[in-house]
């Protein structure tokens, strides 16, 4: 028989109360840890998304919206930039690289990024870590698709699949119209990056322009345009696949690449990096100069993804702190729960304490038995809470990925866990003080009599 055995017997006698108290602590610890971990993981996930892009140009209304749309694919940008404008920006400065991109289509709710091959050679989703293909290759011509790791998992797409794209993002105002005249072939699947790009699909800009040109012409209700149009019956030699589920009651318009006009060749964003000074790492000294030059052009919005992410966290920081404060309040209330559970149990345990005293247990040892019991409840709750946190983080990460497209990898930082567990134990020990003092003072002689 040991002190621990006595404590476990005591806890077992009050099993229901013990379980409820442990669960109360577990929920509080789990909540606190989940919030702390999600905050850290969320921030790093946001930071990962921008990769090695130092600037993002778009026609969005604000730099923050520009980053949310252009890096995190929150919504399809509403205002396009012409390729002519892009070329003018590209040629205006000795950029290290520029990558045009166009957002607006999706596949099964996953955003499709139309871009060029520089996206895979110049842009890195995590700075210093180029793209890696799990399978296949990058697109080499229009109507080929590269699928992000998460998008591949959720859509089930595999190499060789041919699928139509949908205009707009899932849930966006433009969503719903399927570009069923062209099927896109999956030619590559990417390794996970932990960034927002994992849930995107990537294709060549030209194919996307063709789709939207056909849409535009259909909307305009014209099929002449020596320009560009051929109806279904006449045309079947594009060198790529078409969907043939045409029951709109009118002839489909097909556009060839060479028929694209400047009005069709639109993009929604430009990822850019400036050259670094020789022998110097980190941000380039020419970045502010490039930034200022672009800002002078009022027709575009220029954003530094790193700054915007920092700004975003500054905005949500107060809410974030509020959540953490609430979690700490829950933890404190769980400490009160331990106190109440033990305090109430003292009434039932007066006789047990008196018997132990008769058997030779000192007042000090009775005190330490109650404190240890309280700490054990804290340990049980803390460990259950860490497990709950791990589970909760996975669920929350999954929800964030599904709902916001924010790819986070919840990691249980050992230092954070240790601090929270230690804090819980101190709280549990403090909560046990009152009941322990009460146990210490329990009069023996009076409590040896039968308690009715």
């Amino acid at each position: 028989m040991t002190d621990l055995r006595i404590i476990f017997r005591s806890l077992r006698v009050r099993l229901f109360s013990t379980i409820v108290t442990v669960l109360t602590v577990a929920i509080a610890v789990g909540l606190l840890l989940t919030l702390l971990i999600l905050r850290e993981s969320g921030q790093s996930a946001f930071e990962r998304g921008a990769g090695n892009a130092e600037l993002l140009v778009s026609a969005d209304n604000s730099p923050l919206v520009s980053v949310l749309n252009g890096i995190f694919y929150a919504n399809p940008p509403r205002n396009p930039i012409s390729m002519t404008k892009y070329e003018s920006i590209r040629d205006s400065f000795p950029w290290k690289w520029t990558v045009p991109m166009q957002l607006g289509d999706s596949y099964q709710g996953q955003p499709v990024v139309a871009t060029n091959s520089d996206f895979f050679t110049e842009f890195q989703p995590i700075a210093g870590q180029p793209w890696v293909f799990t399978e296949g290759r990058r697109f080499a011509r229009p109507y080929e698709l590269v699928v992000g790791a998460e998008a591949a998992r959720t859509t089930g797409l595999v190499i060789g699949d041919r699928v139509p794209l949908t205009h707009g993002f899932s849930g966006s105002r433009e969503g719903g119209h399927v570009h069923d005249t062209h099927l896109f072939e999956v030619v590559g699947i990417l390794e996970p990056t932990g960034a927002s790009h994992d849930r995107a699909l990537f294709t060549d800009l030209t194919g996307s322009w063709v789709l939207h040109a056909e849409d535009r012409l259909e909307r305009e209700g014209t099929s002449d345009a020596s320009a560009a149009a051929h109806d279904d019956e006449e045309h079947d030699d594009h060198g790529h696949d078409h969907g043939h589920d045409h029951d709109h009651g009118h002839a489909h318009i097909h556009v060839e690449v060479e028929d694209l006009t400047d009005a069709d060749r639109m993009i929604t964003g430009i990822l850019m990096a400036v050259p670094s000074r020789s022998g110097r790492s980190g941000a380039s000294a020419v970045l502010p100069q490039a930034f200022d030059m672009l800002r002078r052009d009022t027709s575009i919005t220029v954003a530094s993804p790193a700054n915007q992410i920092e700004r975003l966290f500054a905005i949500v920081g107060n809410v974030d702190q509020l959540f953490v404060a609430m979690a700490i309040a829950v933890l404190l209330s769980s400490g009160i729960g331990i106190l109440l559970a033990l305090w109430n149990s003292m009434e039932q345990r007066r006789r047990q304490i008196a018997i132990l005293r008769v058997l030779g247990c000192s007042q000090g040892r009775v005190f330490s038995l109650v404190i240890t019991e309280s700490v054990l409840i804290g340990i049980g709750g803390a460990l259950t809470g860490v497990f709950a946190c791990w589970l909760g983080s996975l669920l929350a990460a999954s929800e964030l990925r599904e709902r916001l497209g924010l790819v986070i990898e919840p990691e249980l930082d050992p230092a954070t866990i240790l601090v929270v567990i230690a804090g819980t134990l101190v709280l549990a020990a403090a909560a046990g003080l009152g009941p322990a003092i009460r146990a210490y003072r329990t009069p023996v002689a009076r409590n040896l009599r039968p308690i009715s």
Partner: protein
Amino acid sequence: MPEPTLAIQNLRFTHADPGGGGFTLALDDLQLTPGEQVLVAGTSGSGKSTLLQLVAGLLDPDSGEIKVDGRAMHAMNGAERDRYRGRRIGMIFQTFNLLDGFSARENVLAALMFSDLPNREHRERADQLLQRLGIERPDATPDRLSVGQQQRVAVARALASRPGLVLADEPTASLDPANATNAVELIKETCRQEGAALLLTSHDPSIRDTFERVEELQA
């Protein structure tokens, strides 16, 4: 002459009852030699239980001295007295006062926790006592044992640490006369086997004849 196991000199204790009543316990001299068995008789309210609690060091006397195996109980500080009680004194109660949720064996082991016996001998000592006292289910908790078995567990627990003195407080109060005699005989016999002195309180006249020495407490 061997040192007495229990020596009480000029003991005075006043029990003040807030609701009225109360009593004064006065005992000028009482000694028990090693292995001696003494019945403390007296009517209800004469202070029999109080006397045992004073001997065990659970209450402090107003004056006088109580020595157990030569050590003055009330000269020791609280923790020292608790430890000494655990090693030298065993107690049996009218309601047995077994620990809820603990098996019969664990009740005996709980007493051994505070004894001088090395840990490695605890299990063997507990099993030996329980077997000798006829406990058939040592892993059963008290609520699953008969009253008679519970009393035997209480006796085993009181003697577990090989005390020099066993204090039995009205152990027959809730038993019929036949079982009362058997219970007293069990306690006496076990104390004899273990070499412990016995101070047993009872107001039951039917067990008077089983003791060679009876001390009367006056209310």
